[in-house]
């Protein structure tokens, strides 16, 4: 599981319908749709939450054990990072 804080690409355009996010990549205008677990992770990626803290929220919201959630969330975060939608930062960004 990556250390650090998850941060959305602020250039991405997105909205959530019934707990499921629709995201457009800013660089190539690719459309991405997320399931409810992915949407929870995406919405929590505010630069002030670690993946471990977000996984704890996933376990509280969905019926899943921590080890499974951590493994799946790490793979999901890696996928979004490769698509340029998320970054993992060492320190939280200053408040706006």
């Amino acid at each position, binding site marked *: 599981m990556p250390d650090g804080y998850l941060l959305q690409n602020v250039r991405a*355009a997105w*909205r959530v319908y019934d707990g*499921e996010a*629709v995201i*457009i990549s800013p660089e190539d205008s690719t459309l991405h749709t997320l399931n409810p677990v992915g949407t929870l992770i995406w919405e929590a990626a505010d630069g002030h939450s670690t993946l471990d803290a977000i996984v704890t929220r996933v376990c509280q919201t969905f019926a899943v054990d921590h080890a499974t959630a951590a493994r799946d969330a790490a793979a999901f975060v890696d996928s979004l990072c490769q698509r340029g939608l998320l970054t993992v930062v060492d320190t939280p960004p200053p408040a706006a």
Partner: protein
Amino acid sequence: MDELTLEIGGLRSAIVTRHPEVADVIARRYRGFLTSAPAHWWIEAEVRPEGLVALDDVVVRPTGGARRLEVERHDFLATLDLDERTGTLWLGAIDHIAIDTFLRVAYSLALLPAGALLVHAASLSRAGRAWMFPGPSGSGKTTLTRLSADADLLSDEISIVRLDSDGPRCYGSPFWGDLARPGENHAVPMAAIHFLRHADRHAVVPLGAREALTVLLPNVLFFATGPALVARVLEVAAELTARVPCFTLGFRPEPSVWEVIAVA
């Protein structure tokens, strides 16, 4: 100098050129979309007889900021300033194909602030209401328009939908496909959006807002660059799919398809 003003999707652009042959192509190709009303946009059209770079697809890139764009293909090079509402067009070939391609890109961007999208879709009006039928090539857009003899054609290829103050409306479009004829130049309140698919029987299935948005977006002409323009495309598409009933439409190529379209 010749000056011709086009009104497409409710937005007027004046095209100024010192080349009579360019003016002649525009006057003939967009005959039903000419107006004498004042223009919102100004575009200067020039000719570059030495030819341009070999790019088959349109390339749109920011130049000096996200709202100043360069548009290029093998047969034209253009700039668009979205704030100044001005553009320049250098044509490598004086034909309606180069001009039409440029105008599709230009209008997809220029109409965004007004809440309008250009959509890869056929559109038809009947009894004062408009239906739009998005779908990729081969999905049945032209077939459906040919089955609709009692409907007015708004477009067989690139439709224009706009969130007007009195509700979403579909505008007649000069951007044609296989039919090679423009739509009727008027705006009609939207009745529904039907996403086409081939089937062995007519079937209409309602779509939720999220599903409708995700199937609409791949059909939107999307040359926007920069987060603000991309966000605007998403905003307009989301509002459109929230306000207009959306369906998938499976159909056999028979005129009776309107029996299921009109009642959905």
